[in-house]
């Protein structure tokens, strides 16, 4: 099995004036390629902290005391661990700030291109003074300038005949590979993506698509822009003389313009009506649901391996939420991306996820497929959580007695034991490990001690 993300034994603490909050207490996650993993839990269980830690956005009073986060086998937080081992008990805020800066530098090529994140509030996640198209173009330009450059160069070279031939191929149902091969043989790399994106649009008739494809031909390119694009393609990034102030601005202009064109294609693939109009708008002109789609588009712009979504639909209305969930289901099929979906609402996760992890007091206590979680929950907390959610049918619901523990003074042993109806003596002393109970079902509870018992 291939894993995109492997988080093991992640422990994190926050140093505050009122004491040390143990936010994460040994989180294990294995995320498969192309999977949507849901993380559910109540407020304060550390689910947002987990998301922020994976992408490396930590406040300065946070210290990762143990554990690793491997993205495709590469450790993301080695720096943090090193720091923690040096100043384990008395971290200095100033040192901590420096370490965060260092981490930011290390992760600059990871964030936004290999991992990206969608936050809860669509109202504040977009910059209000920049056009939508620019905001998408910017992420494209920062992370993949050479892709943009190739697209534009290909358009300046492509001839009418090439396009007609490509059209014929498309009409005969050519797949992605053959279009790609076609572009390569004609030395038109970058054109295939544009052809396919137009061809795959569902909202246009064939006649219109043909017209759009034919209009890609021989778009003229100025000498300076040509030089910029060729250098970007050969270097793979914006560097050398292009970083001289002044020239920098001029050379970026052509890339941003191309980014805008790609933004239109991206938005149309996210089923946003009138993408050509939308890229010219400012965030305040769009509704909440539309903004959330734009944010998802920005997150997906660079084809990341992992997208973390923190309560992506919690600020939206039910009918708009249904639109976004529907979109997520489609995205899963189209993009080769793994998702982590964080939510307090189990039923939202049930809609779109492959597997769900239940989090309590900074630990994941149960992971299983959606069906197993709902039909055969094992951990007492999961069972109680599910029976606390009211349903449309209006059946009885049951609250969970007691309160979420104060994470400055977490309970000994299993953190759920003070609220657990099945508590045993050993629950008070030892913390149970995650164990496979069935093939796809992991649980951390002593009730299932005897069963199958092999460790994760």
């Amino acid at each position, binding site marked *: 099995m291939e894993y995109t993300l492997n988080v093991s034994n992640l422990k994190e603490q926050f140093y505050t004036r009122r004491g040390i909050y143990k936010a994460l207490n040994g989180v294990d996650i294995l995320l498969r390629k192309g999977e949507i993993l849901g993380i559910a839990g109540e407020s304060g269980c550390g689910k947002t902290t987990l998301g922020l830690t994976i992408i490396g956005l930590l406040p300065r009073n946070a210290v990762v005391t143990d554990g690793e986060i491997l993205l495709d086998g590469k450790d993301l937080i080695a720096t943090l661990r090193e720091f923690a081992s040096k100043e384990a008990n008395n971290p200095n805020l100033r040192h901590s700030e420096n370490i965060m800066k260092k981490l930011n530098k290390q992760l600059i090529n990871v964030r936004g291109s290999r991992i990206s994140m969608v936050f809860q509030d669509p109202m504040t996640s977009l910059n209000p003074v920049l056009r939508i198209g620019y905001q998408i173009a910017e992420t494209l330009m920062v992370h993949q300038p050479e892709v943009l450059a190739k697209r534009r160069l290909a358009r300046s070279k492509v001839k009418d005949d090439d396009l007609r031939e490509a059209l014929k191929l498309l009409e005969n149902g050519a797949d992605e590979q053959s279009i790609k091969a076609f572009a390569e043989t004609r030395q038109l790399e970058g054109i295939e993506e544009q052809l396919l994106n137009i061809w795959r649009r569902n909202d246009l008739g064939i006649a219109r698509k043909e017209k759009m494809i034919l209009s890609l031909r021989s778009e003229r390119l100025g000498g300076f822009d040509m030089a910029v694009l060729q250098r970007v393609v050969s270097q793979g990034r914006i560097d050398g003389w292009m970083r001289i102030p002044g020239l920098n601005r001029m050379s970026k202009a052509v890339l941003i313009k191309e980014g805008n064109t790609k933004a239109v294609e991206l938005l149309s693939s996210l089923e946003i009506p009138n993408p050509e109009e939308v890229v010219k708008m400012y965030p305040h002109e769009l509704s909440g649901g539309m903004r959330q789609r734009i944010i998802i588009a920005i997150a997906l712009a660079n084809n990341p391996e992992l997208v973390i979504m923190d309560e992506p639909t919690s600020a939206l209305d039910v009918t708009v939420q249904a639109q976004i969930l529907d979109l997520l289901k489609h995205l899963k099929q189209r993009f080769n991306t793994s998702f982590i979906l964080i939510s307090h609402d189990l039923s939202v996760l049930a809609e779109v996820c492959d597997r769900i992890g239940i989090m309590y007091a900074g630990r994941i206590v149960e992971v299983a497929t959606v069906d197993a979680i709902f039909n055969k929950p094992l951990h007492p907390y999961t069972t109680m959580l599910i029976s606390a959610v009211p349903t449309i049918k209006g059946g009885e*619901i049951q609250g969970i007695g007691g309160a979420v523990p104060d994470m400055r003074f977490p309970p000994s042993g299993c953190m759920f034991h003070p609220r657990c109806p099945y508590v045993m003596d050993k629950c008070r002393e030892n913390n149970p490990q995650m164990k496979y109970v069935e093939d796809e079902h992991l649980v951390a509870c002593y009730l299932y001690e005897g069963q199958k018992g092999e460790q994760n």
Partner: protein
Amino acid sequence: MIIAARRLTKEFEIKANSAFGKPLRLRAVDSVDIQVGEGQIVGVVGESGSGKSTLGRTLLGLLSPSAGTVLFDIPDDVLREYDGFRRDGDAKGAASIEMEYSIFKKKGEKLKKIRSGMNMVFQDPYSSLDPRMNVMSIITEPLLAMNYMKPDKAVDRCMELLEEVGLPRDFAYRYPHELSGGQKQRVALARGMATLPKFLVLDEPTSALDVSVQAQILSLLRKIREKYHIGMVIITHNIAVISYMADQVNVMYAGKIVESGPKEDVILNPVHPYTIALISAVPGKMVKPNRIILKGDTPNLINPPQGCVFHPRCPMAFGICGWTADEIATDLKYLVNDKFAGSFNDKAVVSTGAGGSLVINNASAGDEGVLERIINEEKGNMKSLTAIEGLERHGTNIELKIKGYRVPKMYNHDGRKVSCLLYAGDDNKA
């Protein structure tokens, strides 16, 4: 009935866009009829901007309505009499009943008396409790403010109330920031029922809370209803909560009640297209094959759609729902210029003229037939096309005729009231 509202309307004035323009009017609540019996729980469900919170505040008299009345503690026969007066246009008779029961006609001591008979619990327990007051002063505030009892007795009552809502007595001296969300909401509930009101409005009482706490609060609310027979209006966007709590359900959309009736009917067997879509949109582990996903967003209430406010998003809309030339033109433009671009003259342009006329300019000879065929084909997807009555050619232009429209009223259908022209057939003068 503890509370009965009739034709309740609330408009807000909004500053005009330009310095000299007229102020704009936003109709947040539009001629709403609602009533709550003793010990009855009435749910109001709707999305953000549907006016449900404004309705709750107007019912309590926290906002004064632009039109309509709210009658408090009115015997059922008097209410029937009142409805009779209104139906027959007897303004004098109606006014005399309003004089006696309307909460907006009361002043001074009488108003205080009514006030102690109703209260509200707000959504956000974090901001609905004054951070500088301790729990004791928060809970006793309504008791003292309405001269309901003497201060020394109020302390005992506060302890009683704390016990009632399941908090230990020593919480009386704590401050809001020391309490968890659920505990705060319990305190807010204790304040709401301090004077043993007959009527309580709960505005999203659990939406800021975790599910496990939500379950506790909801069962607490049920217990309180059983014990004290308080009539409640629960306002929420969460249909499951309504389904668990309410006896009667009102579904609001863009300031209007679109469907209203007993819970079993409205939630398990909805008939209004909006209610159907809303309920099918509720996420859950059962993936519904026939889920309806509405297009677009809730309308702008400053300039609401004509006819039925829901028609631009409605999957069941038809010709007379209120389509305008602009709405049809948007869809036609897409068909003529994008989807079926090849089938028409390249220069064909859809344009709207003054007085709501809709014209296709520069059409070539055969285009009428093509257009007719396309309209018939696409009618199922694009409901706006159902409003096209016929085509007429003037030279190179094709003029499209648009059907007239009707505004839906509340119709009785299958045990509930519904505001949709689909059910206008069995119109029994609701």
